[in-house]
């Protein structure tokens, strides 16, 4: 008698019809977008703030470096003593005072520049000032040695190394960025999916225990059928939720951007801004084109197939463990001690993925972790865009499947015994004993 479809159906519909599930499905994207909009709005406010910086240049070298920009204007003070200048700036409530002390030797100037202000100045303001001054001082030193400005300009060179594999596949930095984005998104998606829906499975097992229906159910079906039905039903509910999130999130994103006229995509951190600037040097249009080419260069078929297999394999592996934990305990507070051993390999996988795969996708660490079944789904998904030989993918998947079967067997044992155990919080030793019942 195969009751699996029946159980899956029940698990799916109870989840999907659950009020808090519905609320979460429709509210989370709203909350996320609202947060996004608030942050975007606030940072825009911040950027719009006007600052005035006074400059007291006793050397006279740097006076014409400071041109007013959109948000910052500079006042050049002349012939004031430092003390008086500070008083004046305080009175005017300027952002701060930049003082360049009088030094005859050009080499010494850089050591005698100081910024005075009421509060600690923002990092971006200081680094902006530093960049300007450095550029000017460099030029002056070169001029002193007899190099003209025109020569300096002419000497500037921009290098962009073209990459090509032995088999003739061309790639670029843009390729790598796209690959990282793909791999990172896939790995992170799996990580999130496991945590959210693994927990949901665990709670639903605990619910069956606390409502004491479990004994009625397993007098009709095999515990492993119930467990698999639960895992599959909950996953389907999860996929449904994810799809709704993606659609809703996309629509809302566009809508909010339209209504509030905030260019959400333009929200950038300092670092991204710098990266964008360096991109701009070689021509923005060309870069965008490169991204599209990089997209097309991705091994799409391989990616999609591998994504499906590793995603499903990894998810089933972890969710069966979550189900076993749910069966072993009576209530959610008791789950903590068993959660750690599950979360550790998962977090490790993400760390390895983020730090090692980016650095060297085919290095020893990345390769090894892409074979260990508990980390392989995340790490391998991150590596695949960079091109992993099919035999490696196959071997890793085989290991994953073998481990998955072993884990399900192990989880089913604990599940079978655990669902009928009430009252006490089991220890690891007891769990081990259950395997032999």
């Amino acid at each position, binding site marked *: *008698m195969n*009751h699996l479809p*029946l*159980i899956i159906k*029940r698990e799916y519909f*109870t989840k999907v019809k*659950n009020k808090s599930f519905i609320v979460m499905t429709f509210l989370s994207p709203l909350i996320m977008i609202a947060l996004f909009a608030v942050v975007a709005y606030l940072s825009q406010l911040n950027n719009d703030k006007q600052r005035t910086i006074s400059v007291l240049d006793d050397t006279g070298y740097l006076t014409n470096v400071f041109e007013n920009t959109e948000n910052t204007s500079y006042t050049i003070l002349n012939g004031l003593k430092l003390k008086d200048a500070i008083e004046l700036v305080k009175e005017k409530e300027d952002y701060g005072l930049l003082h360049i002390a009088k030094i005859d030797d050009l080499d010494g100037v850089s050591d005698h520049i100081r910024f005075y202000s009421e509060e600690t100045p923002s990092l971006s303001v200081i680094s902006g000032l530093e960049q300007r001054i450095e550029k000017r001082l460099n030029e002056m030193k070169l001029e002193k040695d007899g190099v003209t400005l025109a020569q300096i300009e002419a000497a500037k060179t921009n290098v962009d190394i073209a990459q090509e594999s032995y088999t003739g596949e061309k790639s670029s930095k843009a390729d790598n960025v796209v690959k990282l984005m793909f791999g990172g998104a896939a790995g992170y998606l799996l990580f999130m999916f496991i945590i959210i829906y693994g927990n949901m499975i665990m709670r639903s097992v605990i*619910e*069956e225990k606390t*409502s*004491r*229906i479990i*004994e*009625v*159910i*397993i*007098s*009709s*079906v*095999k515990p492993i059928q119930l467990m698999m039905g639960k895992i599959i039903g909950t996953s389907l509910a999860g996929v449904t939720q994810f799809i709704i999130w993606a659609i809703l999130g996309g629509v809302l994103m566009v809508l909010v951007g339209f209504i509030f006229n905030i260019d959400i995509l333009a929200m950038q951190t300092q670092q991204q801004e710098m990266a964008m600037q360096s991109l701009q040097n070689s021509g923005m249009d060309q870069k965008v084109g490169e991204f599209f080419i990089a997209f097309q260069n991705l091994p799409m078929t391989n990616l999609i197939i591998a994504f499906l297999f590793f995603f499903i394999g990894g998810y089933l592996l972890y969710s069966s463990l979550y189900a076993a934990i749910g069966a072993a305990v009576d209530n959610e507070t008791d789950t903590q001690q068993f959660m750690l051993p599950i979360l550790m390999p998962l977090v490790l996988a993400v760390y390895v993925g983020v730090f090692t795969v980016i650095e060297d996708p085919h290095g020893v660490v990345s390769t090894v972790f892409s074979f260990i079944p508990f980390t392989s789904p995340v790490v391998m998904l991150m590596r695949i865009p960079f091109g992993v030989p099919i035999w490696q993918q196959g071997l890793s998947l085989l290991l994953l499947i073998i481990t998955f079967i072993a884990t399900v067997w192990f989880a089913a044992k604990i599940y079978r015994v655990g669902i*009928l155990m*009430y009252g006490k919080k089991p220890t690891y030793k007891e769990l081990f*004993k259950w395997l*032999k*019942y």
Partner: protein
Amino acid sequence: MNDLLVADAVSKSFGNFKALNQVSIAVPKGSIFGLLGPNGAGKTTLIRIINQITMPDEGRVFLDGQPLKPEHVRDIGYLPEERGLYKSMKVGEQCLYLAQLKGLSKSEAKQRLKYWFDKLEIGDWWNKKIQELSKGQAQKIQFVVTVLHQPKLLIFDEPFSGFDPINANLIKDEILQLREEGATVIFSTHRMESVEELCDHIALIHKSNKVLDGKLNDIKRQYKTNTFEVGLQASNSDRVITEIKNQFEVLPATFKNLNDDVKLNVKLKEDVSPNDLLSFLTAKAEVHHFVEVIPSASDIFIQTVKNN
């Protein structure tokens, strides 16, 4: 084969703890079989083995002459002591789900549920959630779900707990009715008066071993001590008592009776018939009360457990 269920030398251990030790029972077709025993004796383990929830370490179980196999879950209806339903699921949906798990088709389940819901007058609960029902009401639903697929063997573990006397009676009548219709019932309880009332066979499990089994009447015959309750009216009661005491072994009696002057338990020797006692008594006084003392299920239970 007259036995619907036979357990043959079943043993089960959990780690070092032996929950069942070579327990054999035979449940005759059409009987109500009382499975008795103190808490923790191993009854639930045996019931779970019959339901194939746990596998025995040793021994075999036969249902209708066949070794127990997964398909047999359709032939068994089980109401566990630790029972409950999905709290946030609607009554109707839930009953359909559980019935389908027992192998009924959806339409058939619907039809039978309608019959039962009408019979128990609970039709308007269909769209309620379990958490909106009282405990007793949920128990009723649970009972319906247990019997819905018309199993050959019904196993009830403390079926009356949580019911008020009216509903307990209702359920009792339903159980008797199901037996009339051909079902065999295994009945596990600590309420000895229901054992007395319902069971025709019993088995007593104590400390993982079966210590007693058979027809309830046979067991009672075994356990009876040839003792008779005697109630007399006599003008000179003290003298009558002394005379009886000289002739027979007399124990104090506690039965309830209207206006008897003399109340005694008289134990007869093997070779003395009740008629001898009666004619002795009628010669001395007016006999108002003369009953053989039959040990109750409760007496047998306590005595057996103490002796073991």
